């Protein structure tokens, strides 16, 4: 059993790995990289050597190539000063060395040479996975900043709210594991994922930070700083990072060099936004879909069943986009609901009604069809016939026998509804301009924000694949017959 679960987790990880690798390979090779700069306004304004240098630095930042300026080349030389003179023998030798290493040497208009190396597909993918996971360590400060006098230790301390937290001295982050506001309430800074840099939107930010960080305007909250100062500040002390040079302002608040904090913002992050919509709509879909599907199965061929089937068919056939606009229109015309999310924003409950209703309606038909189908299949089985012969009433047969059997495939179907919810979220968030991950993907695509596209692909793929795993594991809890090792997939 444990072996099976480990095997399944490993397979899921491999699945994510394969999918994301393919996506990386496609995006970096099939899309001409010059297109990335097409939408960059500052690049368009530049001319001459500046433009060339900017281009290469940008490409390097995005992970397309390794760009080396002459100063870096000469730093490796035995005679840096001779090397830095253009066309000197020393310089020529160094350039030749780089050329032999697979670099291409070109010259700026002013005659200064530079070298670059285009990564192959494999190098690209390798770099991505190599840089993906970053562990924080007690040696971080010493290694990065050469600070040796800082004590290196992990310890359990208290945060500003007097909650216990695992803290660290010598690491990049002061708070390693801590309780905090916002889902999932236990946070950590020990392991960070790094997906590359967002460009050209939110240029320079890590993609994960873009979607993980709170949005909107800064929110100041009253808090006590380590120095004892109590003031209203948007700084989130839990995110304190080591800062080699603290300024005077920092010193008034912090007692050590861990003073580089992120801020609190008014609105939830993109991830949280998508979660809010996704989870609420799924709960609603299940709360309506399961009883409705069961009711239809119990009164098969009755008027409600026929009506239900008609509605299901209509919802399945109706293109998602049409459904979204119909509901949005009705919502705004009849109930005065906003037709764009930002109109009323996060604070107003009215902003949520229409999108959540739509997302529920998108998962509902599938859920109802399957529930109904399973219930009917179960009703026709022999054990139901025998239960009837035992003298049990229809209601008893239904609640005591059919239900328990039908729950099994329903539980197994949860991942499918999560996957569907992601698809639905892509369109719905775009239509309502909801600042979530779903809207971010088409936005990133339209802005050629490659790293962001890869990040979101990774998140969506991982979410889908692991939800399937979760569904299978949940099923073992409700079905006594399953000895996991023998079982490959629930649907078999």
């Amino acid at each position, binding site marked *: 059993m444990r072996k099976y679960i480990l095997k399944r987790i490993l397979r899921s990880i491999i699945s994510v790995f394969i999918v994301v690798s393919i996506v990386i390979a496609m995006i970096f090779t099939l899309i001409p990289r010059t297109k990335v700069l097409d939408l960059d306004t500052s690049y368009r304004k530049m001319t001459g050597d500046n433009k060339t240098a900017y281009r290469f630095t940008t490409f390097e930042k995005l992970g397309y190539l390794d760009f080396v300026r002459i100063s870096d080349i000469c730093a490796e030389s035995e005679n840096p000063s001779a090397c830095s003179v253009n066309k000197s023998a020393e310089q020529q030798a160094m350039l030749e060395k780089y050329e032999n290493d697979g670099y291409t040497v070109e010259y700026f208009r002013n005659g200064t040479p530079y070298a670059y190396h285009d990564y192959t597909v494999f190098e690209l993918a390798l770099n991505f996975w190599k840089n993906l996971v970053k562990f924080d360590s007690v040696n971080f400060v010493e290694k990065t900043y050469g600070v040796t006098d800082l004590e290196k230790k992990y310890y359990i301390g208290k945060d500003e709210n007097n909650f216990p937290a695992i803290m660290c001295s010598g690491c990049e982050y002061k708070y390693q594991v801590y309780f905090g506001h916002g889902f999932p309430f236990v946070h950590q800074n020990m392991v960070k994922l790094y997906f590359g840099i967002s460009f050209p939107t939110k240029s320079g930010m890590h993609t994960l930070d873009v979607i993980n960080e709170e949005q909107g305007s800064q929110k100041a909250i009253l808090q006590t700083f380590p120095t004892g100062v109590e003031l209203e500040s948007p700084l989130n002390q839990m995110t304190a990072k080591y800062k080699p040079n603290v300024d005077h302002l920092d010193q008034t608040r912090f007692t050590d060099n861990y003073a580089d904090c992120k801020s609190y913002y008014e609105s939830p992050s993109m991830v949280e936004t998508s979660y809010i919509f996704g989870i609420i709509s799924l709960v609603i879909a299940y709360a309506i879909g399961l009883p409705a599907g069961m009711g239809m199965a119990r009164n098969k061929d009755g008027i409600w069943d026929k009506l239900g089937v008609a509605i299901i068919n209509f919802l399945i056939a109706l293109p998602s986009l049409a459904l979204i606009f119909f509901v949005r229109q009705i919502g705004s015309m009849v109930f005065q609901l906003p037709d764009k999310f930002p109109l009323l924003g996060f604070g107003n409950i009215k902003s949520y009604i229409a999108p959540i209703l739509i997302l529920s309606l998108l998962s509902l038909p599938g859920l109802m069809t399957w529930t109904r189908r399973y219930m009917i299949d179960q009703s026709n089985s022999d054990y139901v016939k025998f239960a009837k012969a035992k003298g049990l009433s229809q209601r008893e047969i239904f609640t005591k026998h059919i239900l*328990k*059997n039908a729950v099994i495939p329903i539980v197994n179907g949860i991942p499918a509804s999560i996957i569907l919810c992601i698809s639905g979220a892509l369109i719905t968030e775009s239509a309502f301009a909801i600042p979530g991950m779903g809207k971010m993907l088409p936005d990133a695509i339209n802005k050629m924000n490659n790293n962001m596209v890869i990040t979101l692909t990774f998140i969506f793929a991982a979410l889908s694949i692991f939800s399937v795993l979760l569904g299978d594991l949940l099923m073992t809890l409700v079905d006594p017959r399953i000895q996991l090792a023998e079982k490959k997939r629930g649907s078999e």
Partner: protein
Amino acid sequence: MEEKNIILSVKNLEVKFKVRDRVLTAIRNVSLDFEEGKVVAIVGESGSGKSVFTKTFTGMLEVNGEVSNGEIWFEGRNLMDIKNDKGWEEIRGKKIATVFQDPMTSLNPVRTIGYQISEVIMKHQGKSKAEAKAEAIELMEKVGIKDAERRYDEYPFMYSGGMRQRIVIAIALACHPKILICDEPTTALDVTIQAQIIHLIKDLAEEYGFTTIYITHDLGVVANVADYVAVMYAGQIIEYGTVEDIFYNSKHPYTWGLLSSLPQLGLKGEELFAIRGTPPSLFEEVKGDAFAPRSNYSLKIDFEKEPPIFKVSDTHWAKTWLLDPRAPKVEPPAVITSLHERMLEMTKKGGVYGER
């Protein structure tokens, strides 16, 4: 015959099914009395209406079928007056229990064995959970489950086919029914298990004193356990009598055919007898004797007029014109005249009566 204690009495029963806009008459005007405490076997080939006939006793006909005529008297009331499932729940399981053919699918796969037995006890006897459990374990032991206490919480997939059928029987008997209908209870089981199950039902019938109705096409089973045999053909009972009557003194050509085709009676080198043709379509009205087109003994009148019931003895009657005084004298085929000797011979060889 007043001393006979009739527990269930069927009068002029007719059952119709709707199939593709056409009407099929599955049971054609059948009357039969069941004596209390006796074992009655209903035999006949597939589609003769055996199962449909007994399903009417518990109101378990498929949705496209209905009883179009007739009465079924049980405990002083006509079961045909019951109009809804609520009414039937008083009969099903409690008074008339059924054991189905396939024990593999008769039990709910995700409920424990114990749950499935004790729920009936709780429902029909109104006992508490603990009492029901105690009684269920006792029942399990009675039907031959060893270590019942432990196996109470196991799931059906942990049981073998034969053991599941024992559990099905235990469930059927949980409420001390008056009648137990066994719808081909051994067909899906291994030959070795079949005899065990048959004996189990026989023993339990003696202990609990219920009336058993067997539906089977296995004449071996019939010879082994039945007191009375009803032979069904094309929706009618065409011959009825004690086991002896049917096996050694049968009168209907169809019964002769059935007996002649017993594989046990086949002799090495001799071709095994088979009844030719197929049963008549019940979509059309059957004219005369339904078996006439397939019979080697059919008379002209068999194609014209339905035969009445001819009484052979107090316990034996048959529906065939051959019993009419005006009919020519016909001897049954040689194979079955020596049936008794052959069966004895087989038993001598070490087999059980009815072993295949």
